[in-house]
């Protein structure tokens, strides 16, 4: 039943980077994420609109970008303002409101935008009188672009403002004498000749019927623009890559520290509490050593399930491990089952941490661990009737809940909630959405 084509992960493994083109024409790949449309700040070149649409509908990012650029070059030029409007109205992933929403209360920004648009409109009228139909039709939509960019500039998050600044850098730094080396002077002059030559050619060719001449003119202009802006674009691309790498590194660091907390620190705490029992201490140390070794050298996190393992088996393993290590009975109930993936592994690790916390701190005689696999999500409830605590009073540097549970879930798009009160036990509810493509493998459901 689980054929290669049905399982994108396996397919991709087998066919390398081409694996994600397996369904439909080449510019399509897997299904979209199914969620609402969000700009993707992690994959952005400008506003992340293309990346957002690609992730939303499951297209290839590069294809979407090419389509955008081609549309932008169409004489009517409606795509550029469309992009800007998208930037304004689509919220970035992880944010509640769109820039447009925030901009509504920015009356100065609105005034500025309207002012700029009016000024440009006035200019266009003048150009109109001089008369060139092509520029005219292309330029009118750019009124929206200019006004939109002003609003974005004023209301974007600092991170996005930095992107905008980089994108507009060439305009600002060209007259800057410090940046003007001999090479750049030559480059700029050649570019100017190309651009103005192309523009002149285009203007003179307008009346002519020869189709090839305007085409050549456009190519000249494009060459000029690339010459002027090329180095900046390269730098922007490089900066973006660096920024993404830094982000990945930060997430890795967070994962590692969560890992160390879950295993090493937990064991050290246990050893301190069992200090009067040398045998137990040796046993704990051995076990920790084994775990740490398997994580360091085999790349397998302690408690992380084997690839072949299912989710329910992972839950059972948590039950066994916690019972063995802490001597507290864990009543585990699982409903349904499914294959493990990265997200569910994270969910298992968070569940383990919550169960261990309950075993260590609650003082309850028994811990209940309930896991349910549903078609669109997997949820885990860890509950005890122990002494409970005040979640608001836990200091932020206590790693257990904040990083191992909340952080782990949030990084994978899941949610975690903790309900506890002194004397009334604790209930940790974890939920991880599932990609809708994978069918639930329940005990009885077909």
């Amino acid at each position, binding site marked *: 039943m689980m054929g290669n084509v049905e399982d994108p992960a396996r397919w991709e493994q087998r066919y390398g980077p081409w694996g994600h083109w397996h369904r439909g024409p080449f510019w399509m790949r897997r299904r979209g994420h199914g969620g609402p449309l969000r700009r993707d700040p992690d994959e952005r070149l400008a506003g992340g609109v293309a990346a957002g649409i690609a992730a939303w509908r499951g297209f290839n990012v590069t294809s979407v970008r090419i389509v955008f650029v081609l549309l932008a070059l169409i004489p009517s030029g409606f795509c550029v303002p469309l992009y800007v409007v998208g930037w304004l109205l689509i919220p970035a992933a992880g944010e509640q409101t769109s820039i447009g929403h925030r901009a509504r209360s920015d009356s100065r920004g609105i005034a500025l935008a309207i002012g700029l648009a009016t000024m440009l409109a006035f200019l266009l009228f003048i150009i109109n009188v001089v008369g060139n139909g092509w520029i005219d039709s292309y330029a009118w939509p750019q009124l929206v672009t200019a006004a939109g960019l002003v609003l974005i500039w004023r209301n974007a998050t600092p991170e996005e403002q930095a992107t905008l600044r980089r994108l507009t850098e060439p305009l600002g730094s060209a007259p800057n004498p410090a940046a003007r080396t001999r090479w750049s002077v030559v480059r700029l002059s050649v570019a100017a000749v190309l651009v103005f030559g192309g523009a002149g050619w285009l203007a003179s060719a307008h009346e002519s019927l020869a189709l090839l001449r305007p085409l050549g003119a456009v190519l000249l202009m494009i060459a000029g623009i690339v010459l002027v802006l090329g180095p900046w674009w390269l730098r922007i691309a490089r900066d973006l890559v660096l920024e993404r790498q830094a982000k990945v590194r930060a997430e890795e660091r967070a994962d590692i520290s969560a890992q160390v907390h879950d295993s090493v620190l937990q064991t050290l705490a246990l050893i301190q509490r069992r200090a009067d029992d040398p045998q137990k201490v040796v046993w704990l140390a051995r076990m920790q050593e084994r775990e740490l070794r398997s994580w360091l050298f085999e790349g397998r996190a302690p408690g992380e399930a084997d690839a072949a393992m299912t989710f329910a088996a992972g839950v059972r393993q948590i039950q066994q491990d916690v019972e063995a290590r802490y001597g507290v*009975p864990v*009543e585990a*109930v*699982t*409903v*349904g089952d499914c294959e493990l993936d990265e997200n569910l592994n994270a969910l298992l690790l968070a569940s383990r941490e919550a169960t261990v916390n309950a075993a260590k701190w609650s003082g309850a005689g*028994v811990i*209940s661990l*309930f896991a*349910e696999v549903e*078609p669109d999500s997997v949820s885990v*409830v860890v*509950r005890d*009737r122990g002494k409970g605590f005040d979640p608001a009073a836990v200091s932020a540097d206590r790693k257990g809940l904040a990083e191992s549970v909340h952080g782990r879930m949030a990084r994978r798009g899941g949610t975690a909630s903790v309900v506890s009160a002194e004397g009334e036990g604790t*209930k940790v509810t974890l939920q991880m959405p599932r990609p809708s493509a994978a069918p*639930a493998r*329940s*005990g*009885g*459901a*077909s």
Partner: protein
Amino acid sequence: MSGTPRVVLVDDHGLFRSGVRAELGRQVEVVGEAEDVQPAIDLISSVQPDVVLLDVHLPGGGGQAVVQAIKPLFPSVRFLALSASDAPEDVIAVIRAGARGYVTKTISTAELADAIKRVAAGDAVFSHRLAGFVLDAFASGGPGSGSDVKPSFDPELDQLTSREREVLRLIAQGYTYKEIARELYISVKTVESHVSSVLRKLQLSSRHQLTRWAAERRLA
């Protein structure tokens, strides 16, 4: 139901029987013990207790054989199944045969006494594990999918309501009826009626998923 319920213990482990008898003390009246299917049927027929505490695993045919023999003769005798193994096929079999509830042997004495009283009063008792089994067995799949469907005379029986699902989830998480009532803002009586209704569905449903689910676990 007035006074303490009269209880018969059926279990092949003498140690367990005497342990339960000692622990339950005066909370219930233990009127007899049996250690296998046939002696149990004879004993129950003669003393006609309120509740039979029945081990799922018996050498001579399993707990459901006792239930099947007694049910037609003495419908007023109620069965509370008890097991250490938690194997779903055993549990579902004895429930389908007509037991009013199921608890694990690890249950605390107070909870066991409470469960016996509930069953004596005609309520259903689900352990957290049985609740998990039932959720699993009734897991939503499109109705009519699969070729081995034998349609129920009453389609209601093939579905759990969302409220019943909620109640089962909380039971599976170890909540008591009282805690469930507080959590869902309903009365304990309502919780009991939800659980009874689930029990009825479990016993009467011919839902194909249930059949297949049990068959997969060697139950057919």
